[in-house]
């Protein structure tokens, strides 16, 4: 390098340098993120560009890595619940459920029926909120500023409802081994029903306003097509997989809790493009509404918490368990190994966004940069969940 070279320092860190080694002549290496609005927080993507076209893409992770798995191994079982709300802040209750389920399966703790219903109702409300935020933020990525205002209006209602029985608005830690932290309050059920009645009209408006918009469809149709084989090779799950026509949903495939008591469709679209993934999520809001209604109608009397549930520093038996749930982004799995002490021996968190994002390099190849942004958003990434 020549002294006074204007390009000095622009060659980047070791990731960029390694990435540039394979670059073609006359291509441009573009660093997108970690502070870029469409990378949703702290994702960084290295891109090799030929004009407006992406030749190669490589996500660089770890900017919000907090080593949750190590944290799981230095605290009591119960103390790990707050971490779950921070792994995926948008669908915290699904992670709550995965952790509760892994420990309950290991220690053979039974969950009272009423608690299972409360879990379903709260987790599905949380799923709706996650999809609504995705919807607003995705459209923001694509240049539409208004929809997120509408989405937040609905989100506020759900947050108010959930706050009443969980005590928090976003990073919920509301489940316990053998139940949930609080029973449904009298106001909760009626407000939830009001929300259930409100949403279909809102969704119709969203359809008129956004989903049927020709510009939106033009930007999403045939963009980022994931076929079945690609989804399998990368372990894609959730709406990303269902947008490729595979009706795989953990709530059905590996039923947990009381999900097998409810009737609900698994929305799928076979196109595999960004629009298909968009439509799956919009349909899933309706699915969740239907599940919540059934759960409220069938809510049994009884305990919301197992009377002799483990509390405080408690020791489960030695052994291992694996528990999977369907999160808003796909299959959440927790592998737990216990040595019989008060502290978990090994906690492995399988996050759906991690696998869903791993197919991005293959998917982005040859697309326009603006389409790459549309693809990233259509994967519904939550970076803290990927980095854990």
């Amino acid at each position, binding site marked *: 390098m020549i002294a006074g070279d204007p390009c000095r320092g622009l060659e980047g860190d070791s990731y960029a340098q390694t990435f540039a080694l394979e670059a073609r002549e006359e291509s441009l290496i573009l660093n997108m993120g970690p502070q870029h609005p469409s990378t949703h927080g702290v994702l960084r993507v290295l891109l090799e560009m030929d004009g407006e076209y992406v030749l190669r893409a490589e996500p660089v992770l770890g900017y919000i890595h907090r080593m949750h798995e190590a944290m799981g191994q230095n605290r009591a079982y119960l103390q790990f619940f707050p971490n779950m709300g921070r792994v995926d802040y948008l669908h915290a209750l699904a992670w709550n459920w995965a952790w509760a389920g892994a420990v309950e399966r290991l220690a053979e703790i039974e969950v009272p029926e009423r608690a299972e219903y409360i879990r379903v109702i709260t987790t599905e409300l949380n799923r709706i909120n996650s999809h609504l935020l995705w919807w607003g933020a995705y459209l923001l990525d694509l240049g539409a500023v208004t929809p997120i205002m509408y989405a937040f209006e609905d989100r506020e209602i759900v947050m108010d409802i959930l706050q009443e029985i969980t005590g928090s608005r976003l990073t919920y830690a509301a489940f316990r081994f053998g139940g949930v932290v609080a029973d449904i309050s009298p106001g909760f059920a009626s407000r939830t029903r009001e929300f259930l009645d409100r949403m279909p009209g809102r969704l119709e408006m969203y359809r008129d306003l956004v989903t049927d918009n020709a510009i939106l469809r033009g930007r999403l149709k045939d963009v980022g097509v994931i076929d079945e084989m690609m989804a399998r090779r990368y*372990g894609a799950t959730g709406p990303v997989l269902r947008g490729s026509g595979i009706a795989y949903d953990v709530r059905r495939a590996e039923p947990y809790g009381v999900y097998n008591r409810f009737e609900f469709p698994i929305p799928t679209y076979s196109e595999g493009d960004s629009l298909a993934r968009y439509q799956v999520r919009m349909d899933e809001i309706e699915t969740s509404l239907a599940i919540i209604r059934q759960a409220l109608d069938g809510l049994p009397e009884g305990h919301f918490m197992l009377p002799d549930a483990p509390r405080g520093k408690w020791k489960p038996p030695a052994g291992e368990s694996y528990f*999977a749930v369907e999160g808003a982004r796909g299959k959440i799995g927790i592998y737990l190994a216990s040595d019989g002490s008060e502290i978990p021996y090994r906690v492995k968190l399988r996050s759906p966004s991690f696998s869903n994002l791993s197919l991005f390099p293959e998917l982005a190849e040859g697309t326009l940069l603006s389409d790459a942004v549309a693809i990233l958003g259509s994967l519904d990434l939550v970076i803290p969940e990927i980095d854990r």
Partner: protein
Amino acid sequence: MPELTSRLGLALPQGESGRDAALTIAPEDIRLVAERLLCQDWFLEDICGLDVAEGLAVLYHFAHWSRPGRVVLRVMLPRDNPECPSIEGIYPGAGWHERETRDFFGINFTGAANTMPLLLDESIERPPLLKPEQARISTNQLWPHGEWVGPAKGHALAEELMSICGTGEPGGQTGGETS
């Protein structure tokens, strides 16, 4: 022939244990088995490192879109030179899982295209999830004998996977860990 173990109660109702079959295989067989699993449409859920008294274990969790259950492959590696063939060429999604396992446990996945750290800084000295010696427990405690039986006779998939193991180089015949 590597020791293969499988859960006795393969026909148990779903949801009892979170898995259907757990097979301990030698590292040199992992690619063969992964290939066979891909042919049968299994997908990789995750790859999980585990530090135990016997060495370093790598657990591969596989699930299926239309078949219930979970297949767990366990590979035991020596602590002084933990090396395992990469299955990235078969399941490209495994690449990131392997890089993460390398970050956390220092396990070297041979044949992987990218060996840059995924989540941690390059300058970290000791992989953070390795346990101090006194804290390690034996696999006997983790996977109790009572729960497992010898060769997975009678389970079609387990038998099939077992039959392709140890057919490669002669080193594959030496057998794996007995859990």
